[in-house]
């Protein structure tokens, strides 16, 4: 038996030197396509990611859902192959294909084994540049998305998300989910999709990111080969998301929105407002603020509502920092009987952190440490590194951004957090959206001083 250990206090981890983000190299293919590569050896896996500056905020008026429908059709066949043939080719190299349409960007990624890199890249090029868009395929995929939309009406979290965005951004390009609405989606045709692809999903505005167990030169060579005969021209300015053109959203529809879900045992809650864009100079203070308020398990809101009161499985907050000011959102699912109390407490906590309960030294220390000391964990897989590089591209951040991140977070002090709270958190104009049993919760909500709840359908 070896000697026992000291259990009178916790071991104190020493600080390790900061881990450096792997080096990002910039290249431009002979076709003009912009590229970033990261050598990430260890496991024989590669991830390719194409990021394009077009998203659901690019949806033309009355055509909400067009960007996402078009992107969903990328893998439904190419000029050379039917959808089934294309998927058979992807399956043969064990590839994982992912398409993500955000408000500002569309990303198409493909992960495969290193030895299949060339074939994988060729498939990615085929998928994005030469989609088939047969009318029957467009109709089929649109109908599947309409069915999905219909099903989402019974998912309380999806209802809350949709109505929260509609309430915060009435008439604004950020005011709808990527999937669109039943009316807009039903009107979309193959011609709309072909037009949108031509206008928006063009490689001249895209960046190809390659990460994994190949060298920089091997990545570039594979890409030269795969994108050899692919036209590279810029997307139309009109559909590229440009924060200068988006304009500010109008005032919210109501302070309090209630969606009835009769008999529901919980209420799905969203509280927040339009907040900050990614380029806000106090971005790092905002991250520290969020960690303290609701961005991690040991945040004020989660500790109070879950660990003290037991009202919920967990709540969280986030600043969604987009090209233009995105939403700050508190979200959670809480037992119905506690609904009004939870909304009231959230509003009180939003006000307090910039007012009479500023961040404490211990909270500040914890929030900064959680953001900086766990940094290396976020860059373990090729996919994680590729998504991190995509953020650099999307927001025009310098190649050494991640190496400076730790320093910048460590420089955030209590005054900076309080200042960020005062600039970016506004309890007095926050909107609350609640999806829950109206007959049980309406009267409590009315007492919150947010006005009479606006009633909406799921």
């Amino acid at each position, binding site marked *: 038996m070896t000697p026992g*250990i000291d259990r009178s206090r916790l071991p*104190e981890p020493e600080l390790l030197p900061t*881990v450096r983000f792997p080096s990002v190299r910039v290249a431009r293919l002979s076709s003009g396509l912009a590229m970033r590569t990261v050598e990430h050896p260890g496991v024989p896996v590669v991830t390719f990611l194409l990021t394009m500056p077009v998203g659901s905020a690019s949806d033309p008026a009355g055509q909400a859902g067009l960007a996402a429908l078009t992107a969903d059709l990328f893998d439904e066949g190419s000029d050379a192959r039917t959808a089934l043939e294309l998927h058979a080719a992807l399956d043969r190299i*064990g590839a994982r294909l992912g398409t993500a349409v955000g408000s500002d960007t569309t990303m198409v990624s493909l992960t495969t084994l290193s030895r299949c890199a060339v074939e994988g890249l060729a498939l990615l090029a085929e998928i994005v540049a030469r989609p088939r868009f047969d009318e029957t395929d467009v109709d089929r995929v649109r109908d599947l998305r309409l069915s999905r939309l219909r099903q989402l009406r*019974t998912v309380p979290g999806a209802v809350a998300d949709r109505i929260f965005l509609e309430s915060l951004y009435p008439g604004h390009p950020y005011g709808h989910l990527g999937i669109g609405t039943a009316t807009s989606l039903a009107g979309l045709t193959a011609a709309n999709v072909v037009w949108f692809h031509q206008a928006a999903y063009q490689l001249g505005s895209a960046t190809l990111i390659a990460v994994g167990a190949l060298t920089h030169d091997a990545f570039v060579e594979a890409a030269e080969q795969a994108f050899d005969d692919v036209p590279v021209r810029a997307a139309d300015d009109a559909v590229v998301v440009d924060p200068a053109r988006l304009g500010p959203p109008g005032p919210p529809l109501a302070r309090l929105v209630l969606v009835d879900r009769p008999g529901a045992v919980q209420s799905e809650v969203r509280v927040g407002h339009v907040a900050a864009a990614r380029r806000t100079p106090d971005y790092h203070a905002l991250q520290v603020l969020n960690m303290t308020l609701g961005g991690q398990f*040991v945040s004020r809101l989660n500790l109070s509502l879950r660990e003290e009161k037991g009202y919920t499985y967990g709540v969280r907050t986030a600043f969604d920092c987009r090209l233009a000011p995105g939403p700050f959102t508190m979200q959670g699912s809480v037992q119905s009987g506690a609904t009004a109390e939870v909304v009231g407490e959230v509003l009180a906590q939003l006000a307090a952190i910039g007012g009479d309960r500023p961040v404490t030294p211990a909270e500040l220390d*914890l929030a900064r440490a959680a953001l900086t000391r766990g940094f*290396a964990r976020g860059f373990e897989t090729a996919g994680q590194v590729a998504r991190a590089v995509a953020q650099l591209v999307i927001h025009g951040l310098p190649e050494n951004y991640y190496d400076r991140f730790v320093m910048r977070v460590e420089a955030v002090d209590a005054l900076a957090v309080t200042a960020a709270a005062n600039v970016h958190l506004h309890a007095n104009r926050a909107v609350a959206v609640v999806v829950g049993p109206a007959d049980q919760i309406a009267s409590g909500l009315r007492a919150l001083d947010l006005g009479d709840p606006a009633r909406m359908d799921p």
Partner: protein
Amino acid sequence: MLDYTKISLENGLDVIVHEDHRCPIVAVNLWYHVGSKNESPGRTGLAHLFEHLMFEGSAHHDSGYFAPLQQAGGALNGSTNCDRTNYWEAVPTSALDLALWLESDRMGYLLPALTAAKFENQRNVVLNERRQHYENQPYGMALMALMAAVFPTAHHPYHWTTIGESVDVRAATLEEAHAFFRTYYHPGNASLALAGDVETRPVLEKVRRYFEEIPAGPVVPPVAEGAGPMVLNEAPPDGIRLLLEDRVELPRLYLAWRTPRLFGTGDAGMDMVAEVLAGGKTSRLYRTLVHERRIATDVSAAQNSRELAGWFCITATAAPGHELYELEQVIGDELAALADAGPDAGEIERGLAQVEAQFVYRLQTVGGFNGRSDQLNAYNVYTGDPGFMTQDRERYRETTPALVRELAAGQLSGGRVALSIVPDGSANRALAGSTPAEVS
């Protein structure tokens, strides 16, 4: 496929170390060989509720486990299923002592800190977890109905779900939680895996310092399926038909069968059956139901391999304007075709390529759920051999079209459970002859 060193301490704790120097982090992963299968009827949900209590503090650190580990830049979590409970921390290498200190403290010294107040709080959190993930989700009660029907004897260890019955969670007592800890949470019923930027020999010494002082506990008797009749297998050829009305827009059909257990004969083959039937857009059911006939919005199939038994499930949602009996008909035809002629070589080739790639993708992380440390522990707990990954992969490589045909014919014939979940007030849209399932 992964190099490792395994030792067993005198108190019975298995310790596995895997070196991986790509990144200055280390994953600490601890499995206790206890899950909801160790519970009994009327006392369900305790294993999972207990997992929550493990994060609330121990004798020498009587406050939450998240704060010190997040302060150190670590991530942590835990999960419970029917067979096991796992806990993990992924931390910068300098915080390894902290993670081991905390894991050993809650293994050796939890009870003095396990109070009634914490118990009540986490009972409420768990009831809210159940509301959020099951009761208030469309189709959320399907699993309860399926488990009860596929493992129909009331004492079968898989008859109930891991989240448990609300009434049982409400009835659980602090004394039961204490007894549960004494029975199952000790070194002899646990396996500790470390993976990451560490050196094996010094790290084993470190583990000894933290864990050797914890006494061995009582031997945990293995859980058996029990001697009760397998009612399901004596069901009529068209099987058991159940229905649930729910707040849903589209009806959904679940077809389920009893199948081989984890690593049992035919288990990997059933994964390939699932792949051929519903793995991706080239699969038989996706092609027929969703792509060509457009009578379903989605379809999936899975072999759910568990320690004592397996079950196979095909799930499909009816497209607007279509009914579940149409889906049942087409699925039946496709199953018959597969059982009759088997898959072609291309289907098996594609399925194997996917499986091979998955084995490699899973090597990308050292920590967290399904990272290298979690896989080493899974193999160790279920087979006694942390290096079983190589044989595991071999099982798939041995799959032939003939085997898939044989399994489709043999496993997916009689003794079926068909569960229809239909919109409230539309019981008539369930498969004909269905009776209401009882869930709460």
